[in-house]
């Protein structure tokens, strides 16, 4: 991480013509050597695009409404995803961590950009930024403050660095004042950012 050039390359938020050229050469080389085929690449792209934050939001709301499902979700995220009809075949194990008044989990991958892609799709750009990855494990409370996420002072922040075989999702708390909302309305409250602890569900549907 001390290598300036290395950090600099990762901080580009927009692909450059040079990076497209490099990607083309890499893909061509891998295909020529028979390591990957264009069909496999296309299949992987199609599979990844089936991931969507909506799947995670549905699981969260189901857990708010059904204690048995909540137990399953916290015990085995893959089984909980399969239970709502989302295939997790080929995906790494999914762990789900529950936020409570005492503890707020926030997910980061300081090494790269590990994220439950099979379920939630591609991670947002900020999740992959060097700034988020550095600050999440160093000043999480000031980071959340800047984003306007006000936690109770007594709530411990628990940053989860996704370094290995699991992928992590957060089960946020159900906001108060949502008792009369339908399941569909509740799902709209659970945004992508809530699912990694970088947001809190709103209590009203827009």
């Amino acid at each position: 991480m001390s290598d300036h050039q290395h950090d600099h390359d990762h901080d580009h938020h927009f692909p450059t013509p040079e990076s497209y050229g490099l990607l083309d050469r890499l893909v061509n080389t891998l295909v020529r050597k028979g390591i990957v085929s264009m069909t496999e690449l296309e299949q992987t792209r199609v599979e990844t695009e089936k991931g969507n934050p909506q799947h995670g939001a549905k699981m969260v709301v189901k857990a708010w409404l059904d204690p048995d499902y909540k137990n399953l979700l916290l015990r085995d995220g893959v089984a909980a995803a399969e239970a709502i009809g989302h295939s997790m075949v080929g995906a790494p194990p999914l762990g789900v961590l529950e936020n409570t008044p005492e503890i707020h989990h926030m997910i980061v991958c300081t090494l790269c950009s590990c994220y439950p892609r099979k379920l939630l799709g591609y991670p947002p750009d900020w999740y992959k930024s060097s700034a988020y990855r550095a600050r999440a494990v160093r000043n999480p409370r000031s980071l959340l403050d800047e984003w306007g996420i006000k936690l109770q002072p007594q709530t411990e922040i628990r940053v989860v660095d996704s370094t290995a075989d699991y992928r992590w999702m957060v089960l946020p708390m159900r906001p108060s004042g949502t008792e009369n909302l339908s399941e569909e309305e509740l799902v709209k409250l659970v945004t992508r950012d809530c699912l990694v602890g970088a947001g809190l569900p709103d209590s009203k549907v827009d």
Partner: protein
Amino acid sequence: MNLQVPVTAPLFKPGDMVRIPLVWPEQKGPCHIRTPAYIRGHSAQIICHFGAFPNPEELAFGKPAQLIHLYHVAVSLSDLWDDDAKQDASLLIEIYEHWLEKLSP
């Protein structure tokens, strides 16, 4: 999963205090390490044992990979960073067993 060899029993259980060694294999040559620099040299508590997974340090080079026990360990952020000693925050991180040393109680 390249090589499904039987694994030994996990060395640690939830509650055990461990230390992540302060070593830098990357200075000796190309390698792929999933133990971030900032956690090395620190002590932590075992929270959960996940089971055994192929060693990514071998997988990354296409070598047959040993199954290695994987744990969630927790450490207080104030133990990691001098500049934020009072912040009420902690870290959960996945660490493979060969990166953990038992701390004598």
